């Protein structure tokens, strides 16, 4: 058996050789730590994006001009400029505007993806609200529902059906985009993998494992997105 393995060239040398795999697996702790940072940034970033997105989405669906204009400006700016610049702005601008204030890179990552995906979620929320006809609210109110109970029992259950699939899709994009903080040494999965690979040159196996990590985080959500889409279509 060992002779057979020894005779296969790419297992002995090259970017995917066995010694490289062994080196990566004996240092797998580094990647675990990075994956935890990615999960932390992704979950707090998602919470922030949902909160911001709901507020801005409601603003851009409202009938008042000023909140609507502010919400439009926010959405257009964040959707049309790269996340990387926004993260760099936070990274460079905050210490310059507030000298002496130290902000951990992880916090910059959370704000970066939170504000960026907040703009996308705002659009999802706006579309969800606008998809429910005004007549529904009026009908509910005329039947004695209060505004809150009408929202709770009539509008929100219908809007959720429309809003949920694109929301889970945004969660997938958000997880993938947390990798941007690797460029500012964020300590996330991508950074852990890249710096480990760079130190010893084990790029092949490291990237395969890093890719597997992101895939395992994103794929279940992608499957959930499709299930929800099918349910929405069936309804």
């Amino acid at each position, binding site marked *: 058996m060992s002779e057979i393995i020894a005779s296969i060239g790419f297992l002995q040398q090259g*970017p995917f050789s066995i010694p490289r795999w062994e080196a990566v697996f004996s240092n797998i702790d580094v990647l675990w730590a990075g994956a935890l940072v990615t999960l932390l940034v992704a979950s707090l970033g998602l919470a922030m994006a949902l909160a911001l997105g709901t507020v801005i989405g409601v603003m851009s669906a409202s009938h008042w001009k000023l909140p609507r204009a502010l919400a439009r400006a926010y959405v*257009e*700016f964040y*959707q*049309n*400029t*790269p*996340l*990387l*610049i926004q993260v*760099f*702005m936070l990274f*460079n*601008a905050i210490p*310059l*505007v507030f000298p002496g204030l130290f902000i951990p890179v992880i916090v910059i990552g959370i704000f970066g993806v939170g504000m960026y995906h907040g703009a996308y979620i705002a659009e999802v929320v706006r579309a969800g609200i606008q998809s429910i006809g005004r007549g529904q609210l009026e009908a509910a109110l005329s039947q004695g529902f209060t505004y809150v109970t009408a929202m709770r029992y009539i509008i929100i259950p219908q809007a959720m059906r429309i809003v949920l699939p694109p929301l889970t899709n945004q969660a*997938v994009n958000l997880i*993938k*985009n947390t*990798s*941007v903080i*690797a*460029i500012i040494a964020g300590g996330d999965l*991508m950074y852990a993998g*890249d710096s480990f*690979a760079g130190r010893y040159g084990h*790029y*092949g196996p490291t*990237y395969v494992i*890093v*890719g597997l990590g*992101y*895939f395992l985080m*994103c*794929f279940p959500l*992608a499957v959930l997105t499709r299930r929800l889409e099918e349910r929405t279509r069936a309804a």
Partner: protein
Amino acid sequence: MEAFMNSPVMEMLTDPVLYIGLGYGLLLTLQIAGLSIALSFVFGTIIGSMRYTGLPVISHVATIYIEVIRNLPTLLLILVSYFVLGLPAMWAATIGLTIYTSAIIAEVIRGGLNSVPTGQWEAARSQGFSFLQSMRYIVLPPAVVKMIPPIVSQFVTVIKDSSFAMAIGAYELMFKGTILAAKYWRPAQIITIYLVISLVYFIINFAISTVARRLQTKMSVGRGGIGD
């Protein structure tokens, strides 16, 4: 007024070096994004059609490609192209973006084709249309209407994500700006440079998003009920 004109920010903004640097960066950004979009369109169409056929091996290969690539960060694909495939920085960025965007466009193509009910196919074939004729006259017209807006808005994503190329040292707009930010080191200057770059990306992407939105409204109105 004079104090403002002599300020470090004005000094920088009147320095041609800034614009020459950012200009070259923008050229590389447009080159990477343009090539990626063109290549992704070709590969995306092939992969999307492969999945649409439903043929055993062919559609499975396409499905696995799409499902794996869609769930990986673009940055990882760019790093793999650079460090594992060993491509030069500009090509690594282009290929990394192409690998990702092809999967997205493939899904758009398949979704568009699937949106045409099979009854239309059957009706066309039963009326004596050949496979190509049914495609050309019956299936593609409504399907393409569905595909164009999401493909155009994907252009915006490609242009934004081309900034990831700075991670492998390609001198595109974002990296050029960061290098210039080190040359003009004063806080106000650094912030101004990033604002200028944001503005450049914004102008290009806003124009494309506006076109995508127009297409969406125009096509759904013109087709009466086909658009979402």
